[in-house]
């Protein structure tokens, strides 16, 4: 019990003193997850929209594959990315293994299906009259699609936040492809795992508290956006 209390006390000291090592780990975690989410949005949102708005061949199959991807075990993703990026792998020449770039790729693979699937659902659920209204007001096909996507903005943002929640809390894949190298690829989750192993609870608890705080913020944002989408309160008015 003393160890736990002492751990919490030291953790609070680290947080309040804005310990440089702690800040560096948090900053890298946020950078990696933000980059992965941004890429997932760039790739996943257009694909989700395309699947929702166009009658593509094999659409059902593609959606099944993407929905399966939402439940991918992170260690399997870690293994797959490791094999791709290892020296003898097909992308070995890029020398990305044990770099933040490899961690971004792993997190991208985890977040892409979530963004794609939730964007697709959000866009499919937009009332068809919105598309017709755009048509009768003179929209060309691209403007029509953008109008429908804009109407689905809450659902799309919810998808982005759900994906962010998954990647920030993930440890298995990033530890395998990032290597948990101090000052280079060490992020919050991997540090917690390592420091707990070493019996060094101060930093682990401090990061645990911050990670929980971050998860809480992500969840509040998630629920707020869902509520805004349902009730339309506090609407974000596009210009």
């Amino acid at each position, binding site marked *: 019990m003393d160890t736990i209390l002492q751990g919490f006390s030291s953790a609070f000291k680290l947080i309040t003193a804005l310990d440089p090592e702690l800040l560096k780990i948090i900053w890298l975690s946020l950078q990696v997850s933000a980059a992965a989410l941004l890429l997932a949005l760039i790739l996943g949102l257009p694909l989700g929209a395309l699947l929702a708005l166009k009658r593509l061949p094999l659409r059902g199959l593609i959606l099944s594959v993407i929905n399966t991807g939402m439940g991918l075990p992170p260690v399997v993703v870690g293994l797959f990315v490791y094999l791709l990026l290892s020296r003898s792998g097909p992308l070995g020449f890029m020398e990305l293994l044990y770099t933040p770039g490899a961690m971004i790729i792993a997190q991208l693979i985890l977040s892409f299906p979530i963004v794609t699937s939730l964007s697709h659902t959000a866009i499919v659920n937009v*009332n068809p*009259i919105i598309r017709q*209204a755009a048509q*009768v*007001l*003179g*929209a060309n096909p691209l403007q029509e699609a953008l*109008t429908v996507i*804009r109407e689905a903005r809450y659902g799309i943002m919810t998808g982005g936040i759900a994906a962010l929640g998954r990647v920030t809390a993930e440890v298995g894949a990033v530890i395998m492809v990032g290597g948990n190298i101090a000052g280079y690829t060490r992020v919050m989750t991997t540090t917690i795992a390592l420091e707990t192993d070493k019996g060094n609870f101060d930093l682990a608890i401090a990061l645990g508290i911050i990670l929980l705080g971050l998860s809480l913020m992500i969840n509040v944002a998630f629920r707020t956006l869902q509520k805004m989408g349902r009730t*339309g309160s506090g609407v974000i008015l596009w210009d």
Partner: protein
Amino acid sequence: MGLSLELAQISKAYNGQVILRDCSWVFETGLSHVLMGPNGTGKSTLLRICALLEAPDRGRVNYLADGRPLPLDLDLKRRITLLLPGVGVFNTSVFNNVAYGLKIRGINRKEIQAKVDATLEAVGLVEKKRQRALDLSTGQSKRLGLARAMVLEPEVIFLDEPTASIDQANTEIIEDIIMNLKAEKKATIIMVTHDPAQAERLGDRLLLIKDGKLWPG
């Protein structure tokens, strides 16, 4: 000479059931035409076909300018519009809803501001322009739909039951707007209604739809 509309032997079926058969008509430019008939007889379908939202199974919709038929392209679609029965209000402000059609046409901001303000004034929604459009009442939403269409100054406007399920006060406002559209903007109006008194008030020409065919009223 404005845009004129002719239907040539339009036929349409849904799930094997024929809704419209060989409908032909020449709509007189600048007049208001009221289309009446029982529910399910194809009035809305005919309007959607005329507004180029749906294609007929057979026959042709011809738009003519100076007697010459025009291609059914985006340029033409931007000269006509349809007020949908459910309006299809965008989840944004009243102002942005009305500005939508102008923005997608690449009109500059200043002109948009002036046109939208004038149109909102005309439909009595100017005080609501910064409000969320989805918070409007059904009657106000219909007025918003009309404003969204009017601001584009269409040469042909289709109105699918513009006063259905709204109160008397809003109905009167909407009827005034429709009369102004015809008198001031010289638009050709083709509307569907179930109210014979309204048809009498607003229509220069009455059309009946029966057994999938169009008849003069």
